[in-house]
């Protein structure tokens, strides 16, 4: 792998942090979207309004339908529920203010740890100095060399046999 490959992991994680996985919200109706963004406050299970099967969830679903029918956007409907029942009714932290810390931290930590790991691996690689394969590994390689194989087969089998002999 070329050395420039070291930027790949942090870049991939950063993309994930910024964009996240592709949103499926587009596939859902506004009703379903809002149901997924609100928790049912029935107390019988920690489920979103979309999944909860209790009577309370039925009531909330009806309220969402009514609000959407009056022309409110999904964001407005969610905001109305938050104003009435508090932040706890959201099924996930919002993406502003202190709540943003919840979203960014896992990816920031992964990017930092990933960069540190890449740096460390490069340092270890620079030390190099390859130890000789074990006696069992060498014996396995000789056994494979003696078999009637093509060069490609020989390469794969030498690796497999050596790893088996060395117990890995």
């Amino acid at each position, binding site marked *: 792998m070329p050395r420039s490959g070291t930027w790949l992991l942090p870049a991939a994680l950063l993309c994930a942090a910024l964009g996240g*996985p592709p949103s499926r919200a587009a596939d859902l109706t506004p009703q379903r979207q809002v149901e997924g963004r609100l928790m049912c406050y029935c107390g019988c299970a920690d489920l979103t309004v979309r999944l909860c099967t209790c009577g309370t969830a*039925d009531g909330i679903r009806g309220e969402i339908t009514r609000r959407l029918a009056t022309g409110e956007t999904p964001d407005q409907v969610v905001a109305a529920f938050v104003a009435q029942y508090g*932040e706890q009714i959201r099924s996930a*932290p919002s993406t502003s203010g202190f709540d943003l810390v919840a979203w960014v*931290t896992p990816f920031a930590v992964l990017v930092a740890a990933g960069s540190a790991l890449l740096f460390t691996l490069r340092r270890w690689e620079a030390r190099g100095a390859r130890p000789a394969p074990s006696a069992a590994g060498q014996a396995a390689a000789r056994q*494979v060399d003696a*078999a009637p194989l093509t060069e490609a087969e020989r390469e794969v*089998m030498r690796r497999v046999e050596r790893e088996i002999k060395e117990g890995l």
Partner: protein
Amino acid sequence: MADFGTFCLLLALVASSWAIIASYNGWRVQSGELVLSGERAVYAAWALVLLGVLALEYCIHTDRFDLEYVASYSNRALPRMYKVAALWAGQSGSILFWLFILLSYSAIVVLLNRRKNRPLMPIVVTTLSVVSTFFLVLVNFMTRPFVRLSFTPVDGNGMNPQLQNPFMAIHPPCLYTGYVGLTIPFAFAVAALVTGQLGDTWFRTTRRFTILSWFVLGTGILLGGWWAYVELGWGGYWAWDPVENASLIPWLTATAFLHSVMIEERKKMLRVWNLSLVIMTFLLSILGTFITRSGVISSVHSFTKSEIGPVFAGFLGFCVVVAVGLLLYRLPDLKSEARLDSFVSRESTFLFNNLLLVGAAFAILWGTLFPILSEAVRGVKITVGAPFFNQVTVPIAFGLITLAGICPVIAWRRASARKLLEKIQIPFWALVGSAAALLIAGVRDPYAIVAFSLSVFVISTTVMEFYWGTRARQKVAGQAPAAAFLSLVDRNKRRYGGFTVHLGFMLIVVGVTGSMVFKQEATASLKRGQGFALGRYTMRFDAIVRQDDPNREFMGGRLAIFEGTRQVGTLTPGQNFYKAGQNPSTEVDIRSTLRDDLYLILTGFDPQEGVYTFKAYLNPLVNWIWIGGAVLIAGAWFAMLPDLRDRKRDVEARLREIEAHAA
């Protein structure tokens, strides 16, 4: 019998405390007799706690409702099986059960190591006994199972209806066995740090305990998912509930350890990291218990919350200080000259696998604890639910799946990038082909396309490893294909057991993706004779069903299920009304095939109008999750089977010990 149980638990506390004093001092003054006395005290504590458990079971089975625990979690009509399970239905009983499992493990460890690992054993026994003593203090003074009421109720409150399910009877013991088993590698790691015997003995000795705990915890998590699926009645199996998360987090770090320890075995590096992983895993298992028991975070599992949270937090803090202190103290001895032949090597991929596994554990822990942080900083308690965890963990999971595909084909020490690309050529084209096939079939969901095609990639690389290995045996040893295959897997159970685990994991990924992305649902309020449709099924409400037994009354509706015009079966979803007076519980009914599950719930009924409301889910591929779980368990079992090489190594280690002793 209650007094007998109380007495046994008090004596067990004395025995366990003696085990700490005798073992630690025996090690300090090098007294074999004291060490032996400490080990015998472990057996005594185990026997006494066993008697305590039997005493509580006896009280439950003989309806001793003058005991608070029995009155709270059992009743006369409770079936026998659930009376056994009532032991872990409430807090004090489940902590007693936890303690019993821990002491059973401890007694087995002492028994298995009575002639080996002698330098480590006194500190292993000390560590295990410190943990047991903590739990014994809890059951003797803080959450006592044998507390008497000031009166004797005629009948008990009965068990929570949601817990009256066969899976629920197995799920907690599995989780506990997994959680508690993680104490064993921790105890050996502490012993290695205290004694300075930092070689490979501690992890070689505990390898089987680690795999056993890992796979039992994994089985417990799967059974929990199965229970949620058939019992909770919302059509899913994983809700990212804090207690579910608490079981997944140590499982992820244990998975990281099982991979990275291979690097230490081979290259004698990452010693600090591996010890840290084992310590972290144990601490996370205690944190999981703390979350379950304290009620600090609201959870569907808060069957048993109480005031012991601060004590758990204190014990957790104590363990962190001791473990981190020991690690820092031994840091100079643990430093190894880490070297890497090549960046492109199995070692690197394992380290990235560790990064992602520990990263996933951190992300889930972070999301689980964030409500507490938010309350502390803003004074506002918020919810961190499924949308957060899905968004955060899915990219990490994709990274892990990709690594599971590359790892098996990349060589230890050094692999050339060109040869690696050659090796993954066929799996890569399988990936491209499956993505194209999905697009042609009309699948447009990017999650599904990525997850399915990556699964195909991993399954092809893994199957090819089996194929190439068999070919190698065939040609090198001149064996027939079947014999070559058997000899191949038999000669390295761990390697091929591990690959089987990867295959199981991929089947789970396929099942989770199918059931999450392509789930369909419909709701209908019906009178008898009316019907509704979902996917390829049509359902007709045929009859009202009522069943009565001493424990509960069942109310449900029978629906005929049609595929096209052909009737393929009947389903009877309903609700159970328990006579002990709790809320009704949903009883779903499922038509299960390899292709999908038709999942029916009775969400409400109006007996006067004769209108019944049903919710139906069509969950594609969900059965592959359970099949994948079974494959994963089979692979883990296979990896645990004894290897001739291990036996040889044990004998050699024993000989070395005898020689050292003689010298």
